[in-house]
């Protein structure tokens, strides 16, 4: 799914992701400031801790919306395949994390799972796009 072959639904999805990132960045910045510089406790601490997760969850919802709006069925298949690869990578990471917690009393650092999910997704999309480009002939 390269930029040049982006479908209208894909372009809309990319615009929404960009908007969400513009919301996420100040949110994470403000959260960092509030939690570090104020001795927050109770529901206020929970509120600020969870706040940056909202745009991230919205990001996942936007992917679902993209899959609904995408009329190019092959592009939809490529995206779903990439999501499966990313989900497998995420589950693998979580299993390793669970065993590390159970037997080694340690854990994978925070946010690694999310990073692995999107990195795997991007790699899977990239590999499929490169494979398709290699096969293109007019």
């Amino acid at each position, binding site marked *: 799914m390269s930029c040049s*072959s982006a479908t209208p639904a894909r372009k809309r999805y990319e615009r929404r992701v960009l908007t969400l990132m513009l919301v996420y960045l100040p949110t994470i910045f403000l959260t960092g400031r509030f939690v570090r510089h104020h001795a927050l406790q109770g529901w206020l601490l929970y509120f600020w801790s969870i706040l940056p997760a909202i745009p991230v969850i919205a990001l996942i919802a936007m992917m679902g919306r993209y899959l609904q709006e995408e009329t*190019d*069925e*092959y592009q939809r*298949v490529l995206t779903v395949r990439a999501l499966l690869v990313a989900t497998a990578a995420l589950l693998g990471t979580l299993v390793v994390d669970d065993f590390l917690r159970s037997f080694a009393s340690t854990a994978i650092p925070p946010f690694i799972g999310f990073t692995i999910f999107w990195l795997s997704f991007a790699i899977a999309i990239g590999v499929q*796009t490169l494979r398709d480009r290699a096969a293109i002939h*007019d």
Partner: protein
Amino acid sequence: MTNRLRILRAERSWSQQDLADRLEVSRQSVNAIETGKYDPSLPLAFKLARLFSIPIESIFTDEA
């Protein structure tokens, strides 16, 4: 499943992009169908048949 998409396209001197525009899909999709990497859904197969004014079975052949 094999298909005659490339031949049908060549008969009309259409590029993959031309066909993609007519089908309202990406060029990547046309290429994937032509090379047999992706079998289209029934609605898309019917759209192809209507575009070339031939039956679906004249485009796609089941190897089984």
